Every structure is written in C-alpha cells, then in structure tokens.
C-alpha cells in the first residue's frame, strides 16, 4: 500500500549530503515494519527521547533538548521506502530524509540518506544516522531500545524547547 500525503519536496540541484547503509541480519519485512512505524523512531535512534506522530506531522525531541518538527512525505510499502522532511523550528532551507530497506543475501540492507541545507548540519546528521542504523539493528535483532528513549508511559511532559541544537 502506498501511503502518501503529499508530493515529496524535490529540487533537482540538491544532492545527498548524508548516506549511510548497514546490512542487518534479519529479513526485510520486520525491519521495514519498524521503520514504517514512524512513531517508533525514537526506539531505535540513539539520543532521541520521543517521536510523536499526529497525522502527517512527527515531533521529535532530542536528548539534548532540541525539538524537530517533521513532515512525513511518504511511507511506500511496495518499495519499502520512508521519506520525511524537517520543517522547523530550526531554520532549514531544505531537508529530505529517506530510509530504504532493501533485500540482501545476508538479510536486508538499510540505506539512510539525507539532503540538508544548512550544510553545517550534515556532519551532525551523518554521525547520528550511523548510530541510528546500529540502533535499528539492536532493536530488530536483539530487542534493545536506544539510549535516551523514553517509553510513552515514562515520557516527561517537556516540550523540548529548553535545549539547544
């Protein structure tokens, strides 16, 4: 099923600034099920405290206190591709995040890409995405949730705006 709220924001001159991939020793299906459950991202993204979803809007609170608002652009079950973009509150000229879960002889290959402007964020996202793929493997293969994650029952009511990027 193709679940799509809007046409992904694309400008041809944007390039992929971050690209990380990891082979996970698991069939693609269970991995994709976790990735496609947008509200579960904080369970496998280290340093992410919570990820709430309302409609097409995901609100992520980072462990440093920063808040990211995101628009979910596409959850394409046939291609096993998830796309989103950061919309604020930091000033983002352009962002597109894409997670693809591909078949692989050893299990599946997860590719996590991001386009980001301001470019200053690229190395930050690059490192975080590398951690996130490991976190995804930890969750799917070992059942371990990521550092920083607060289950909805434990989550503090803070809005995340007290922190800093």
């Amino acid at each position, binding site marked *: 099923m193709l679940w799509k709220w809007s046409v992904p924001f694309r400008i041809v001159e944007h390039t992929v600034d971050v690209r990380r991939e990891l082979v996970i020793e698991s069939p693609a299906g269970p991995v994709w099920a976790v990735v496609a459950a947008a509200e579960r991202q904080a369970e496998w993204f280290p340093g992410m405290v919570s990820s709430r979803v309302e409609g097409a809007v995901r609100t992520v609170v980072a462990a*440093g206190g920063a808040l990211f608002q995101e628009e979910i652009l596409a959850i394409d079950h046939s291609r096993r591709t998830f796309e989103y973009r950061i919309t604020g509150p930091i000033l983002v*000229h352009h962002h597109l995040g894409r997670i693809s879960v591909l078949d692989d002889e050893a299990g599946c290959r997860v590719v996590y890409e991001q386009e980001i402007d301001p470019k*200053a964020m690229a*190395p*930050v996202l690059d490192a*975080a995405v590398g951690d996130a793929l490991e976190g995804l493997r930890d969750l799917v293969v070992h059942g371990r949730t990521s550092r920083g994650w607060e289950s909805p029952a434990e989550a503090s009511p803070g809005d995340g705006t007290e922190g800093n990027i």
Partner: protein
Amino acid sequence: MSRRILFVTTDQQRYDALGCNGGRIARTPVVDQLAAAGIRYERAIPQNVVCMPSRATMLTGQHVRNHGVWMNGVPLPHDAPSVSSLLHSAGWRTGLFGKAHFEPFLDPFLRFPESRMGRHRQTDEDGRPHRGFDHMELAGHGGAGLVHYSGWLRENHPEHLASYFPPVDRTLDVNADGGGDTGAPQVSHNPIPRDAYHTDWVVDRALAWLDGLEDCDDWFCWVSFPDPHHPWDPPASEVGRVQWRDLDLPAGYPVDRTEREALLDAKAPHWRRWYDGDLVSNYEAPAKWVPATLTADQVREVDARTHVSNELIDEALGRLLKALDRRGWDEDLDVVFTTDHGEFQGDHGLLFKGPYHVDSLMRLPLVWRPAPSRGVVPGVVDGPVGLVDLAPTFCQIAGLEVPDWMDGAPLPASSAGWASRERPAVLTEWDSRHPSGAEVHLQTITLDGMVCTRYEPGTSHSGTEGELWDLSTDPLQRVNRWDDPSCRSMRDALVNELDALLPERPSDPLRVEAPV
C-alpha cells in the same frame, strides 16, 4: 611532599595580551607575577590554530596527525591516551573546569560524554572519570549549549539566559551580526553581572572542587577560561575599563587600504580571497562577514573588549591563587598558563582565525611558574616550544616517565635547556574541508627565527605556494620570502626538516561529526 599542578588556559588569546609580554593595555599583574617568579616563553606555538585540535594536543602531548583531531568537529577518540589519565592512574585527583572541547559542541543527540555530562549536570561519566578527569564542570562561550554553566545559569540567573551574544545564527553559521558602538561582528552588550559571567564561574567551580580535597592530595586542576574568544561581550559593567576610542591601532593593522591589500596579495591566495568575501574556507569565522568591511574603529572596539576580558581572567586567577596560598598549597604548586591559539584582532586587516600561520594565531602566551620549593631560577626562554610539550612537562613534574606515545618533550626551564633540546623545531598543521567545498592544507615549521609554511594542493592552492617569514627582520610578517631566490636554500632546508619531522598522515582519518 605532595605535588600540585594548576594548568590555566585561556581561549584565543594573543601573546601580547599580557603585560609581561609587552602588552600595554590590559592590566595582568597576576600572570605577570607568575612570569617574574618563573619561566616565560617568548615563542610558544600551537600545533593547530583552532580549538579542538589544539586542545587535543595539550591533553595528549601528541601532534595532530597522531591524535587524529585534524579540524574542529572531529571528536578526540574516547579511548585516546591523555596526561590526565596517567595522573589519575598514579593516584592524583584530577579536575577540569571551563571549556574542554575535546568533543563537538553541536550535539543535539547527546552522542558525546561532554554533552551528556553538561546536559545532566554530572561531573563524571556515569561514575567513571572522563578522559582521566575525576571531575569536570564545563562552560562554553555564552549561556547556551550543553554545558554545566548553562544549567547553572538557567537555575540561578534565568533572566540572563539571553544576555549573551548567540555564537551561531538560526542557520547554524557563526553569527555575523554586529553591535557595540561600531557594529563590529560579534560585539554585543551583555548585561550579565560580573559574578555570574563564565570567567568567575570557572574559578568558583574550581575552588569548590579544591575545597573538597585533602591537604595531602596530589592534584591536577585544569582551569580553562572560555575568554577572550569571541563573542566579544564581557559584562557591561566592566566594558568601561578600556575606552576603545582611546586605543591606538595595533601595529599589525595596515591602516592604508591599498597597502593592506597589497600585503595580503603577497601572501598565499586564500588570504585575499577571504578578505574579499570570495572564499569561506573554515567554520571558525562568520561566513556572512566580509573582512574587507572591517573598519579601524571596529578593530579598536574588539581590541578594547578583549583587553577587558583579559583583565577579568587575570583577576579571577588572582582570586584562585590567593585561595590556594591560604590553603598552604603554594610552595609545592606548579602553575602553567597558556592558551590554545591566537586571534587576528585586527592584524593584516582581519579578525577571528583560520588557515593562516602567522604570529597573530601562532605566537602564544606561555608562563610556567615551577613550585617555589623546587628552587628553579626565573628566566626567559627565547627558542620555540610547542603546546605538544605541555603534557610531557606535567609528567615530569609528577615524577612520571614520559610515555612513548607523547610526541613532545618536557619544557626547558632555561635557555641553556632549550639549546640542548633534541628537536628544536616546532610544527603546526592545518587541514580543513568546508561544506562549501573549500579545502586547505598547510604545514609549518618554526626554526632558527624563521617560519616556513608549505601549502598542499587545495581549492585555493596549486601546491607550489608557501610563506617564509624572517622573524628577526620582519616581525609583522609583511615580506614573504618564499619566492626570494636568496632564501631558496634556506627554504629547501626548512621544508626538508619539516618532512623529516612530520608524522605520517593517518590512512583512515577520523570523521568530522559536527561543524564545531
């Protein structure tokens, strides 16, 4: 007998900031007295001219290629060796107060222990020392950030959370906004009370830790002031100490625009390209600020505020030293005072820092006041030494063998000691890769009164460029002798020595994980 080491660093402070080095504006009687009672180094040189690589060198005693922190934003590996770990293992109490910056500041997901400790106001890493420090309380350049000082400010002076100038703008570029009387970049009115400013906070926290130590403890205390690094926003109550309108322009500032630009043209091409706003090669200066717009009055105002910050540091250090003396610790206390790198502060018509290996950024204040009980004769060492020599010096003070993984050697305590050094040359490196695509790579050797810089191919350089400065005849570094045929043999000899001394580049460089 107990041993104690007080290691005091500032951030981005010039050699001429201190009275003992000929500074005539800021009053720095405390450091001047340390120099009079100890050893003052005329030419202390960093191994890199920005914070993270330079601080990694201070901590590890290694050259940049060996510790691997090749530019800001590259974290020092968690398991990197450090002098603090050695001291801790030898039973010393170890603390760091103020700016660490061994790990990136921009860390929204708390990937790094410094950020986690700061965010959660923890003084160690989940019950363990971090990088050998039993206790860390960290500060940055203002009220924001994932450091202990920010939490303290939020708790004690929430009304001043926004008093500091924001170091970065909403697009995460270094903030180019101007202020003050002249509109100079990163100059700002800061209404915070002096006793809540980070300079005094750093000493307050160090004193609180020291108060908890036993009289007989051996200890290593790194007091790391974030100033006088930009933003130039010392407490407003103190700004009137130095009236910018009364200041002469620095000798290094060529007043005449035509002359200034001709001097820049005589250097490697990235100098003029940055000045004209044609190149952003690194993150450490505001990308949206064009140095050619810098006015003489702006230079004066930045200069004045820097002097104010330097006075506040000296006074805070004086308060700390008095407390140590009252505790009866002074007699066996070694004090080392230095900084991580310099600041243009108007020299060459520029502010901030970057890939420019000249005295503004490379000639640093360094004073070592050995413990009076050791009876070391006060003096001045003229020959070049490096920050890479600090960690071995701390080992020597502590009576520990200098490990093989340290590249430096204990600081000489006299000119005779310097003359007998096995390796008198000092190396400085720069490597940067900016998101704009700009790459700059340079390596410098300081030896025999000459500073020789070789440029590798990059986006502004073909690899044939270089700079050769004769410090004895050209202290302002205005006559580049790189292409002077009469200096060719000297240049070749210096480059050969550079090649002989530089460690191998790591085959797998560490990743950049943040812009800063």
